[in-house]
Structures are given as structure tokens and as C-alpha cells.
């Protein structure tokens, strides 16, 4: 028995959302450490 189109769509949507969140978290992490470095230099 295979995935129904709705199940596959829901799965892909959730995976896309999770990947987007991970990308945002990584970007925020990089920005945070950049900000800390600049603040300490000043």
C-alpha cells in the first residue's frame, strides 16, 4: 500500500517547513555570534 497524494503532500509540506526552520535557526546563530564578536571588539 502506498502513500495517498494527500499524505505525500502533507509529508513534503512538513519536511519543507522543518528545513526552513533549521535554515533560519542556523542563520540566527551565525548572526548572533557575529553580533557578539562585533560587540566585544567595540
Amino acid at each position, binding site marked *: *500500500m*502506498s*502513500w*495517498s497524494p494527500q*499524505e*505525500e503532500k*502533507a*509529508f513534503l509540506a*512538513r519536511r519543507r517547513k*522543518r528545513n526552513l*526552520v533549521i535554515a533560519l535557526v542556523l542563520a540566527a546563530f551565525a548572526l*548572533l*555570534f557575529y*553580533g*557578539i564578536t562585533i*560587540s*566585544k571588539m*567595540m
Partner: protein
Amino acid sequence: MASQHLSETRAGASHDAPATVMQAALPQADWRDYWALLKPRVMTLVVFTGACGLLAAPGHLPFFLSMVAILCIAVGAGAAGAFNQWWEADIDSKMKRTTGRPLPSGRLGRDEALGFAAILAVFSVVTMAFATNWVAAGWLAASIGFYVVIYTMWLKPRTPQNIVIGGAAGAFPPIIGWAAVTGDVTALPLLLFAIIFAWTPPHFWALALFVRTDYANAGIPMLPVTHGFRETRRQILLYSLVLLAVSVAPVWLGLLGMIYAIVAAVMGLVFIWLALCVWRNPATEPSGMRAEKRLFGFSLLYLAVIFAAVVADRIIVGLA
């Protein structure tokens, strides 16, 4: 084990797997479940007292680094909360107050919760060290370790004194905030620690009195369960007296001035008055425990006002 099975199922999911497996493979948790794992209401108090420690400390920390330090305290507290829910998932499923949490309700697996907690704990400590200093980071790591190992795993399921000693875990934030600015720990942050330490037992026991059945059903040896209502009410009163003595100690030692002295005295006396009302209340059913609910509510206000007074006193004295 269930979450492990679920993870394996997810990893091995393919398009020709049975529908039931596919249903299990779909992640059920969303961001709200991860947020709930952090115990955001507890985090609010931790952030507030940590920020007060940071503001009351002598010296200067750039605004951005101060915000990062407060973020680290918040994330560290969240990590401790997530570890707590990971460890207590079975107990939480037996208590009405906690059955809706992400783990007992099955929306989130235990492995996911553990991984999430570990990542947050490491992030908070490393970032704190990088942004401020290793003293603050060390205290932050100690507070997470104390809450998880000493309180959650060791004391809470074993002794009615769990709240007394375990309360120390929630008392660390002002020390961490202070250390983030100064790089050391002196008498005032230790006294702020002592205030939260003395405040925790009457605060939690007031709550434990009116949710006693929940704790009894879950087998948690809270004082009302092991020693009854009368003894718990007596202990609440005694700790309220200790709290007043500890809260005015910074004035005796010349560390804080008149603004704080007046606030601490007034709030402490009201606290004792409400504790006396609890002591005199013979009720054994939650419906008759208005005095306990009033003390619990006031205790939250008490801590906020006392710490706000510490900051106001330090800032005004600093300006004078």
C-alpha cells in the same frame, strides 16, 4: 522505546510502506510543543530575576551582550525544563495538571525531547561563555545540572524536602546575571539567591496544598502528601519568617538602602499575614483553600516586587 521505534520508522519510510506506518512517520509535533517543553511560564520568572541580577551588578556590559546573557539564561532554563519533562514523562501522564504536555500526550517522542534539551543546554552555556565569561557560563551549567540531576532525578521522587533543596536550582539566575557583568560573585548576589531559596518552599507548598491529590496519585512525596495539611501549613509559616529575615539582610549589611528596606519590610509582613491565614485554615478540600490560592498568587507578586526594588535601589543609589 516508542519514540525510538517511531524514529526508526521515519528513517526507513518509503513510498510503498503500509498506510499505518506512514501515519506514524508523519511528525505530529509542531513548534508549540517544543515551546511548551521549555516551560515558558517558569522561564519568565527566571529571566526576570536573572535580568535583575544583571542590572543590579556594578560595572557595565554592552546592551547587546546583556541581551545575549539574558537569552542564554532563558535558553538554559528552557533546557532544564525540557530535561525535566523528558525524565518525568511517566509521572506527568498521571497528573491532571500535566497530562496535556507534549510527551505524555504522545505528540513528541522522548528521544526528540532529550536531543532538543541537550542542544539547548550546550548552546546556552557555550554562548554565555563566548559573550560574557566562563564564571557566568559555569554557574549556568551548574544551575542546569542541579535542576536536572539533584532536583528532578534525585530529590523530587525521594523526599518531601525536594522543594527545599531543589529550590536552589531556581535561585541561580541572579548570580548568573551578576557574574555575567562582573566575572565574580559577591555577597549581594548570594543574598538574592538566598531570597529565592527561602521563597520557594512556601510558594510551592501553597500550590501543593490545593493540588495534593495530583501529587498523591503520581506518587510524588510532596510535604502535604507525606506529612499532612497541618504540618505543611506550619512549615509555610516558618519559611515565611525565614524569608523576611533573609530579605532584610542586605539592608543590615549595608548593601541596599531605604527604598529596598521599605519594600522588603512591607511585602514580607504581607507575606507573613497571608501565611498566618493559611496556618489558621483547617480546610482539606481545594474548594475551601482560598487562603492558599491567595498566598500562591501573592508569592509571585512578592518576588517580582522585591527584585524590582533591588534594581531600583541600586540604580537610584548609583545615580545619587
